[in-house]
């Protein structure tokens, strides 16, 4: 699939000396849902803000739909809809007016039928004549999404779409994002909820301290997720793995005190019972068994910690 956003060597440093982004390279494919994951202050919002035009870049280049964000900002910004993290609204404006305003601001001629469709899709049509200040937080978030979609963007940025949102609204939001993707819009969302990335994303990028430390297909990550580790605590330590266990993916850990076996929970045969049987046949006694599933959270935490240690 073709790239719709290309980020090359993107750097952002502030006058204070703080470096918010360090030489980030990233390709976003058209039509995908990409989740940018990272702890608070990692650089997620900075990256989005640069691509959208709210923050000046210090180095590197970004193109959106083939348009450079600095030299051809009209082209790039026309292709983007942005929903920031905070609920920034004109409190005294009516819903339909603020959404119509956004369409004009992005250089599109008035199209009442399209605005009606956007408002209906977001369940805002009944509230179209309400002032924004009369709406609940969840509805305000929808108004901001409607504004971002009003000019028919090819890319939608959702910065922390479910931060501070209750569980039910979060599920609604996920459903909404999936429906948006059906319309062909590329969606980039930032989140610090692993669950959110697992639920929605096609690909996941992990950013920490301004560095993009991992970009991977979610299905590939899910395969890792699908793996379990069986730890067998032995009664007596072993020096080497017995040749009879060559058929299993086992390694010796903790100075030979433990055997670790990684297996695929999705597979027809996990090999656990046969392994235990073979151990019994070999007379290798064990005193404890423990299984552990690796999650995206584990991967995330270990990546972030590895960064911290480095």
């Amino acid at each position, binding site marked *: 699939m073709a790239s719709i956003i290309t980020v090359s060597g993107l750097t952002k440093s*502030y006058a204070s000396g703080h470096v918010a982004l360090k030489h980030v390279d990233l390709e976003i494919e058209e039509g995908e849902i990409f989740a940018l994951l990272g702890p608070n202050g990692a650089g997620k919002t900075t990256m989005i803000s640069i691509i959208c035009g709210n923050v*000046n870049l210090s180095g590197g280049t970004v193109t959106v739909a083939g348009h450079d964000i600095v030299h051809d900002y009209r082209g790039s910004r026309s292709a983007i809809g942005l929903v920031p993290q905070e609920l920034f609204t004109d*409190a005294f404006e009516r819903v339909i007016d603020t959404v119509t305003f956004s369409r004009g601001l992005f250089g599109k001629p008035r199209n009442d039928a399209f605005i009606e469709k956007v408002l209906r899709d977001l369940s805002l049509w009944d509230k179209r004549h309400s002032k924004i200040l009369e709406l609940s937080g969840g509805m305000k978030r929808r108004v901001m999404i409607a504004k971002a979609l009003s000019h028919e963007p090819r890319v939608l940025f959702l910065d922390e779409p479910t931060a501070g949102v209750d569980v039910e609204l979060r599920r609604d939001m996920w459903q909404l994002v999936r429906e948006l993707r059906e319309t062909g819009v590329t969606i980039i969302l930032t989140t610090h909820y692993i669950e959110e990335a697992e639920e929605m994303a096609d690909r996941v990028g992990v950013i920490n301290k301004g560095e993009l430390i991992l970009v991977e297909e979610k299905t590939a990550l899910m395969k890792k997720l699908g793996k379990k580790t069986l730890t067998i605590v032995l009664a007596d330590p072993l020096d080497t793995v017995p040749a009879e266990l060559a058929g299993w993916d086992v390694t010796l850990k903790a100075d030979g005190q433990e055997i670790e076996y990684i297996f695929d929970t999705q597979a027809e045969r996990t090999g656990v019972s046969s392994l235990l049987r073979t151990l019994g046949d070999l007379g290798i006694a064990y005193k404890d068994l423990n299984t552990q599933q690796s999650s995206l959270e584990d991967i995330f935490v270990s990546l972030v910690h590895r960064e911290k240690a480095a």
Partner: protein
Amino acid sequence: MSGLNLHAIKSIYFFELNRFRRTLLTGLMVPVITTSLYFVVFGGAIGSRMTQIDGIPYAAFIVPGMIMLAMFTESIFNASFGIYMPKFTGTIYELLSAPVSAVETVIAYVGAAATKSLIVGFIIFATAHLFVDVQVAHPLAMVAFMVLIAISFCLFGFILGIWAQSFEQLQVIPLLVIMPMTFLGGAFYSIHMLAEPWRTITLFNPIVYLISGFRWTFFGRGDVGIEFSLLFIAGMLTICLGIIGWMFRTGYRLKK
């Protein structure tokens, strides 16, 4: 998209005018009442003792000064508020992420603020006619002068709105600088009435040139030559446009 983003200019312009419309009644009542009060106080009380200045009845003499005073403050308040509010509420994110150039942004915001300021100027002009017979020697020049003043002071207000980081900063310049300079700049008297050295000192007040120029469009004469007034407006326009250009290029207090 080529050329100007006209849809964006139109959207911002009418968004801003709508904002004014929400406070239409007070927006229109204030200039009418203020003008009437000026006539009662200055025209009635002082004018009865000081019948003429340079051969012009005092009540008529103060009309251009009143219009200028109102237009200076209206222009600065409207334009500064227009750009400061999105900064304050955070909705500026949308403007910054839109395919809108600095020129389009300025045309739209300054255009809307100047429109309101001109409306106020004409309301005062009309109200003045209820109290005094004012003849305008150069009507076209009067309208052109009002348009130029509205644009210059709205540009100045726009700069103030980008610069300001609090409501207090937003008000400090119009209330503590422009208003006193206007009163001391001959809005309600001719600087020829001042004794030296005050007369010479007053000539360093740039507002003198604006009020004098506007008074020229009414009565065919002012405290200083009309050419100085026009030069001053041209200078002010150039400096304001230069500063705004720099602000947008660097993203000063707009972008991080």
